[in-house]
């Protein structure tokens, strides 16, 4: 019998969230087991481990993992914990290696986590099995370069978990490679004193945008400001895509970056277009690249820890009930024009990260949610906005652009996973 048997009291059928959802350390522990230990969790983009022997450190829930590419090019995700006495075998954030050697007593592991050698093995006797003492490995699958891992051997294949609609949106999102493969260019990382669900709620929350990001909007040119004014135009929507995933379509004209390529080039990208023409790119490719640089017109939120947001990946890592690490990963075009990647990086720096014109304001309101949680424990948190005029979509309801439909999608999945 799970301790939290009355899940309706935590997330009610009329979309109210109990304050303890952000605060209860026992509930947090339960979430780590029932959710982060059982589902597909995003760990890396393939371009972060490009070569044989490339690795990077990541997390699945609270557990530190290593993502590594072996000599055959196969990706492995394994727990960063020596099987002898638990020391981490790697503390380098990313790099290239041929093996991992534990610094404590020297056990050596291959890129696939297998135990290769240990000093003076005789003392373990003849029946010691190296096969059974490799690093703990997780099931690993990727889609469109996005690498996910899970402790759950019985879970459905990744693409089934995502479903065809999510896969379609991922395909559309990756078109911002502008015809080149998508590649990670760098990242911003910051930690916020808040529960992980506060950030999970945020990626499909259009309602906050004009309020929290007013100061960002004020630094845009007229046409760009108009484009970000998606709440007033009201052409967008938010849709529940099943399994806790959701999409927020802010700028429907930019749903498919390959469509309407004959549209005029926005003023803010004219300089870039000129530069690309100067480098000899043909006009149709210039248009395609320039359009890709601006990013996709939507945010796609995947339960429980990664989202595709306009032009970057946002990853959350729960650390404690009231602490969450956030990464904003800038992406660009592998082998594409340097000028286009530079333009994307400058756009990324403009909004994202510790000194961006947007992220600090997000971080401040998230922290304020956590601080406010201390008051009025009996007051519920409302995620019922827009429930009144939701329409049925293909897999779940579809609501107004400012509706909290995406949060309800996530909490529905949260409830499902917490109940089994």
């Amino acid at each position: 019998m799970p301790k939290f048997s009355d899940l309706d009291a935590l997330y009610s059928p009329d979309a109210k969230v109990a304050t303890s959802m952000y605060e209860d350390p026992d509930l947090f522990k339960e979430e780590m087991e029932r959710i982060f230990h059982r589902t597909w969790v995003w760990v890396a983009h393939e371009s972060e481990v490009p070569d044989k022997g490339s690795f990077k450190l990541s997390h699945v829930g609270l557990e530190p993992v290593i993502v590594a590419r072996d000599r055959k090019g196969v990706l492995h995700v394994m727990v960063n914990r020596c099987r002898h006495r638990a020391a981490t075998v790697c503390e380098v954030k990313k790099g290239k290696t041929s093996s991992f050697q534990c610094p404590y007593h020297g056990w050596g592991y291959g890129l696939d986590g297998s135990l290769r050698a240990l000093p003076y093995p005789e003392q373990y006797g003849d029946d010691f099995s190296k096969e059974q003492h490799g690093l703990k490995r997780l099931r690993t699958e990727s889609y469109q370069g996005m690498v996910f891992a899970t402790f759950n051997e019985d879970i459905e294949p990744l693409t089934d978990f995502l479903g065809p609609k999510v896969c379609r949106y991922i395909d559309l999102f990756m078109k911002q490679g502008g015809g080149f493969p998508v590649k990670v260019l760098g990242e911003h990382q910051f930690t916020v004193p808040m529960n992980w669900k506060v950030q999970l709620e945020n990626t499909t929350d259009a309602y906050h945008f004009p309020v929290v990001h007013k100061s960002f909007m004020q630094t845009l040119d007229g046409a760009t400001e108009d484009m970000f004014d998606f709440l007033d135009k009201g052409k967008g929507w938010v849709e529940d895509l099943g399994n806790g995933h959701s999409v927020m379509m802010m700028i429907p004209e930019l749903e498919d970056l390959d469509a309407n390529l004959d549209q005029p080039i926005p003023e803010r990208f004219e300089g870039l277009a000129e530069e690309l023409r100067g480098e000899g790119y043909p006009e149709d490719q210039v248009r395609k690249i320039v359009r890709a640089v601006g990013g996709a017109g939507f945010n796609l939120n995947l339960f429980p820890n990664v989202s595709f947001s306009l032009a970057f990946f946002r990853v959350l890592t729960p650390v404690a009930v009231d602490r969450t690490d956030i990464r904003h990963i800038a992406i660009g075009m592998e082998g594409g024009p340097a000028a286009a990647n530079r333009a994307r990086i400058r756009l990324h720096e403009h909004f994202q990260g510790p000194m961006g014109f947007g992220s600090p304001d997000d971080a401040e309101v998230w922290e304020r949610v956590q601080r406010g949680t201390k008051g009025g424990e009996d007051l519920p948190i409302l995620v019922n906005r827009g429930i009144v005029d939701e329409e049925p979509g293909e897999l779940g309801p579809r609501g107004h652009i400012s509706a909290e439909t995406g949060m309800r999608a996530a909490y529905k999945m949260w409830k499902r996973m917490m109940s089994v």
Partner: protein
Amino acid sequence: MTATKATNDLALLQKVSAFIWNEAALLDAKDYDAWLDLWTDDGMYTLPIGDTEDFDNAVNLCHDNAKMRRDRVGRFQRGFAISSAPPAETVRTVSRFVITRVEGDEVTVESAEHLIEDKFGRQRVWAGNVTHRLVADGDSFRIDAKIVRLLNSDGMLNSFSYLF
């Protein structure tokens, strides 16, 4: 004139120290308009991530030309940015000045910065290595480049409502 290691030029050291201390005082006082006036027109203000030197092609915490600096200051001043209204209070110390290069009317100075921020009743400490490229301007200088390499710049940070 050839580049020299000029740490022994005490008069120059005193002059650049006074300039950088004044800059630090302006930043702590949030006197951002005066801070903007310290810059050359093409000056770049950069907080890199990790040890890259190729700032243009890397993701930085910020990499500001004159327009971005003005926009950033405007954001702090207009009162719409919730993270800056109110902003954290800061007290910083800049020290350990070493002049690493003197060429013509350009001086490159390296220093250490410690900054303590206070907000929501909690204090946080940041440290960074700073490089200033200063250009002589009359009796004083203008900043042509300022690079602040925060400790742990490629690790987990928090958001900043002030400048380094």
